[in-house]
């Protein structure tokens, strides 16, 4: 079952930022979102993940199938790498975290408190969470921030393995991941400014 976004209109802080967004993400496919800062990439991803309701349009096929990865990794600095990942694995009902640790080269760091990791290592731990969710659609917001080239390659490998196993990925990023993915430029979907000639407009 594919993720279908039709005529989606979304707002940030009460003002529409994107309108008429249409795309379909099929199993095994990846879609890269591009666009300048402030165009609404994060807002679009949050809407698709179900964290905020859209102004109009619909997202179909995403219920309980989306794993969302935000700007921040949601790590607890007092817990170790294993404890952090094991928690998410239990929440999502996955048993083993070994494969996820190995995929992001974290096995050697497994008993370090997450607070002592570098920014890039934290990011890798945050990304390895996607592997333990066991969900088919990955929705990721700037996943490669603070990663070095080797880690970006690890990430690209993980995404390719996920796609090969029938999953799909929706990624907002500015860099080239070397994936055979469609690219969706959000620029043309920018919402038109609100008409300010109505009564409320004078107060906005």
């Amino acid at each position, binding site marked *: 079952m594919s993720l279908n976004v039709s005529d989606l209109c979304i707002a940030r802080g009460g003002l529409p930022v994107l309108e008429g967004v249409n795309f379909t993400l099929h199993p095994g496919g990846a879609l890269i979102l591009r666009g300048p800062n402030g165009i609404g990439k994060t807002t679009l991803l949050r809407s698709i993940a179900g964290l905020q309701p859209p102004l109009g349009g619909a997202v179909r096929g995403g219920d309980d199938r989306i794993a969302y990865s935000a700007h921040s990794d*949601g790590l*607890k600095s007092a817990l170790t790498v294993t404890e952090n990942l094991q928690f998410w694995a239990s929440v999502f009902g996955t048993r083993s975290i070994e494969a996820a640790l190995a995929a992001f080269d974290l096995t050697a760091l497994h008993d370090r408190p997450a607070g002592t990791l570098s920014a890039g290592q934290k990011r890798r731990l945050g990304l390895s969470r996607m592997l333990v969710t066991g969900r088919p659609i990955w929705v990721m917001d700037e996943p490669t921030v603070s990663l070095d080239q080797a880690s970006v390659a690890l990430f690209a490998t993980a995404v390719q393995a996920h796609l090969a196993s029938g999953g799909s990925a929706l990624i907002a990023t500015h860099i080239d991941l070397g994936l055979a993915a469609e690219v969706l430029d959000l620029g043309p979907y920018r919402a038109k400014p609100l008409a300010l000639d109505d009564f409320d407009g004078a107060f906005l």
Partner: protein
Amino acid sequence: MMALLIRDLRLAVRAGGGFGLGLAFFLIVTVLVPFAVGPQSDLLARIAPGVLWLGALLSCLLSLDRLLALDWEDGSLDLLATAPLPLEAVISIKALAHWIATGLPLVLAAPLLGVLLNLPLDGYLWLVVSLLLGTPALSVIGAFGAALTVGLKRGGLLLSLLVMPLYVPTLIFGAEAARRGAMGMGVETPLLMLAGISAGVIALMPFASAAVLRINLR
């Protein structure tokens, strides 16, 4: 759900978790009251149940702003909201973890601190029973307040102001049950009211908390 409870308890006892904060505050309040009131043991005995209840309530209040704010800051609240757990369950578990880490130690410490306030011998049992029945309500109502103020920087003041009026019924009936117990009177009525309040908020409040949390996460 167990995983979330274990994680929250583990975080509470690790460094910086604030496990002892409420307990230390409770200790300070009850130790200082006799100094402030003066060495009149009959007066202390009369106000002891009320002081102990008030101290327990304020200690609960003190640790509320950590309940959801930390998860909000590091982004794990967003991730929990997209996880298979319903938000109602998340907030209930978080309130339970808060009760185990804050409310339960207060209940256990209260009889020891009752000695300092010259609490009458009959009062100890009913003090512990009333706190045991009342503190879960404090945690659940507090979780609602924390959900209301979750996105706000330094929301602690607003949280206290919002939660204070909701705490009043629990305080009235809890302190009344402990006072009547200490004076050797019947405690059934205030205890039943207290139990009713706790049962009611435990059943209904998580839905309200989850609803405001959903709005605040937008």
